[in-house]
């Protein structure tokens, strides 16, 4: 049977030929495809298995410096009519005087492991079996940690094999295939009639059952620890962020500030800060597409430019912004291979492959707790995504926290707002950085201990 990838390759050629015929000066085709198998849990049992097989693609066209794009999931499109519409929209668009043409010189940069045959071969029965194992493991681990009952109330497991394809009207094309496994579990434990939960998020490009089960055990144990959480008094506290919580904040409030697009458009606080100290000397940040099996690893970006491993922040000093072709040419430099698209029809904009954050001097988790005089360990937050990259304002409501006094864990906390500014948190208010760098999606982050955090509570 013809694969979606074959269909996309064929469509790319036909669309580009037709667009040039209709008067386009250049064109770019970006396609992605995915075969998805997913199972969902409700109240400890699998309630549904679903399967999908789909491709989608976007075409950007330029008439001189006038641009338009179209995104389609229709695999039998009316090419003639669509090409005509697209060229017409482009002709009517205002000129983008900075448009340098679409990216050329496609090639692969770093190569890492991103395709796992075991994932591609996993069928619905295999997924159901794996998920059942995860659910049973959670139950055992929760009871082992003292719960009367532990169940996975809601959750899911999804495996994907797919890929991306980029083609331009200069005769270049490149594609890459990859696999992905992700799981999320809401684990609930009951003890003496009271309940608490913990939420596990997991993602990897390979099938590593042992790793998923280890994380499940960890999460199930944690699910027993937040029974009876309540707010603490408002005030200033020390706060220890679990690596996943650090990652969530970094993805929202820090990562976008490195985009050359935001810098050039005057909305990044890192503007004019190259070679300046922007974070604590203890912090390094890398753009690292070379990590095996990591979610953001890839050998070229969404416009065919090779990716590379590089320091973005070294000892707290800003080394570079992230560029795609468009923003790079505006500064007469080369793209750093960081052009990624929000959707198949969007223009690329600069972003990390994997954002890897680590400390130079690190401490073990227990040591970090030992440093706390009056503080909160934060394991779970909601609303963190409203943190504000234009000024570094950082905020979230804590759903899973533990109060610590003089290095000793007291009781669970929930329903308090923690707030501050990321440049202070990872700057003058940084007390310590954890030794383990843990992935969450494409952000790899350590635990961080911060002083002077505003806490709104009782």
């Amino acid at each position, binding site marked *: 049977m013809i694969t979606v990838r074959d*269909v996309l390759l064929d469509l790319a050629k036909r669309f580009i030929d037709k667009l040039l015929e209709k008067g386009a000066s250049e064109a770019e085709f970006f396609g992605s495809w995915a075969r998805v198998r997913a199972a969902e849990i409700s109240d400890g049992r699998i309630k549904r*298995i679903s399967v999908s097989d789909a491709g989608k693609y976007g075409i950007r066209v330029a008439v001189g410096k006038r641009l338009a794009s179209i995104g389609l999931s229709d695999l039998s499109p009316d090419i003639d009519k669509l090409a005509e519409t697209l060229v017409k929209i482009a002709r009517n668009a205002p000129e*983008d005087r900075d448009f340098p043409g679409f990216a050329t010189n496609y090639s692969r940069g770093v190569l890492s492991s991103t395709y796992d045959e075991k994932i591609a071969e996993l069928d619905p029965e295999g997924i159901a079996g794996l998920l059942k194992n995860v659910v049973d493991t959670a139950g055992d681990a929760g009871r082992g940690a003292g719960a009367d009952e532990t169940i996975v109330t809601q959750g899911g497991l999804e495996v994907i094999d797919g890929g991306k394809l980029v083609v331009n009207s200069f005769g270049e094309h490149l594609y890459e295939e990859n696999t992905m496994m992700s799981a999320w579990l809401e684990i*609930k434990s009951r003890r003496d009639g009271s309940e608490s939960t913990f939420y596990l998020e997991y993602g990897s490009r390979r099938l590593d059952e042992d790793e998923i089960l280890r994380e499940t055990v960890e999460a199930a144990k944690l699910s027993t620890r937040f029974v009876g959480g309540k707010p603490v008094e408002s005030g200033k506290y020390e706060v220890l962020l679990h690596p996943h919580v650090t990652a969530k904040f970094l993805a929202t409030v820090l990562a976008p500030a490195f985009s050359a697009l935001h810098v050039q458009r*005057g909305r990044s606080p890192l503007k004019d800060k190259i070679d300046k100290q922007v974070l604590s000397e203890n912090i390094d940040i890398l753009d690292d597409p070379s990590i095996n099996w990591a979610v953001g690893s890839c050998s070229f970006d969404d416009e065919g430019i090779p990716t590379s491993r590089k320091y973005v922040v070294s000892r707290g000093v800003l080394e570079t912004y992230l560029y795609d072709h468009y923003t790079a040419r505006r500064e007469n430099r080369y793209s750093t291979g960081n052009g990624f698209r929000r959707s198949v029809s969007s223009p690329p904009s600069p972003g990390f492959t994997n954002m890897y954050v680590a400390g130079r001097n690190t401490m073990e988790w227990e040591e970090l707790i030992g440093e706390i005089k009056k503080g909160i360990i934060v394991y779970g937050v909601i609303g963190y995504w*409203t943190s504000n990259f234009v000024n570094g*304002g950082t905020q979230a409501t804590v*759903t899973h926290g533990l109060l610590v006094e003089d290095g000793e864990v007291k009781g669970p906390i929930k329903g308090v707002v923690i*707030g501050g500014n990321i440049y202070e948190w990872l700057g003058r208010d940084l007390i310590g950085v954890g030794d383990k760098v843990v992935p969450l999606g494409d952000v790899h982050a350590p635990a961080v201990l911060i002083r002077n955090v505003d806490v*709104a509570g009782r």
Partner: protein
Amino acid sequence: MPDPFDPYAILSYAEKLGVDFADVRVQRRLYETIHLDNGVLREYSIDKTYGVGVRIYLDGYMGFASTNKPDWESVKKTVEDALRAAKAMRLTGKKQELYERKTNKDSRTSAYKISAENVDPSMKINIVVEAYKRCRSVEGIVSALIRYGYEHDKRHYVSSWGDDVRVETRLIGIGVLAIGRHGEVMERVYDADSAVAGWEFIESRDWGIFAEEVGKLASEASKAPAIKPGVYTAILDNEMVGLMLHEAFGHATEADEVEANGSILKGRIGQQVASSLVTIVDDGLVERGFWIPYDDEGTPKKRVATVEKGVLKGFLHSLTTAKSVGGEPTGNARAMSYSYPVLVRQTNTFMLPGEAKPEELFEDVKHGVYIRGRGALGGEVNPAMGTFTFIAGPSYIIEDGEIKNMVRGVMLSGMILETLKNVDMVANDLKVKTSVFGGCGKGGQMVRVGDGGPHVRVSRITIGGGR
């Protein structure tokens, strides 16, 4: 060539394979975006989607599969995949039953006068360019993005029960993101206005004025201090009330959360869960909300009061949760697109108005905050832990009943079972709002929603935020 996504051909193929029940969702969707970034046309794109999703039941087990490969062999394989998925659950899965309701045959189209597809692209570009100029004309604005969005969604549902429901919706709007700078401090404010309508909605108002207002707010906010963290008396405007209800209560009333044992409201029907001033409604057809006459299981969307005078009355249901949790289908089974299975989702969530005039809410507030929705980013809830949060736009301190200085970075936090008990006044002004640029996310699916309410006073709520 016969249409490979002919739902009746798909249905009869599924029935030939011996399934107990099948339903088919065919969707065609167009989404047009114009995105003007600092005066440069960053994106003019049209996204078109066309595909089919098939759900089947066999011996009580549910399987779902979808495709957009438009050939009959691929479509047949999709039906077989759905069946195989259901069979794979025999060892480990949970049986589910469907609530048997009466058959529906209907075809509905949302009201519009001018189809935006037929409007010349240059007219649309002119609107965003003009809005951009007006926004940038405001002193202190260093960056601005203007967005135009238009969605035309056609869904066709058929089932082995004989349902045949077609729903066609148009949603259109303009969004403005303005970034103000004062010294070293920058602040962003985003606002959008959308309506279930055609191009006539864009023509009905001056978007330059709208963009200028957003710019002024961003400029002013960049000069405002962050709020001092603590517990406050808060007056929430119409938009904020909607946001709070959606998070604080809406999600916990979704019966799939209840069925999963994931909602703190499980087992509380008939209990007082809010102040007696509070009545909360989920309605698919309210004015200025999103428009949902039928859900993605072909069930008519009923107006449901989940909370009446503070008492929890019922949950929002799909056909399966109406059976498992108990209740009647309410028309709340919704999917982001043909390629996703349905989940229980809210439609338009709002509080019914009370009797007070909005200004009366402020009268005896000694020290509080007037929480404004303009520029608010949204919210999130953990229905199992019972904690919710939502983020306001630039807001104002209230001193002795008077609205005083602006504060920024306002994040509110509350507990599902406590916060709505602290509602002590409800005004008589109802407003509902929807958006073509966003919606509500759950289980990886985003659906359009609306929310709103009257001005409401909450005697105690935790407020903090970034700076």
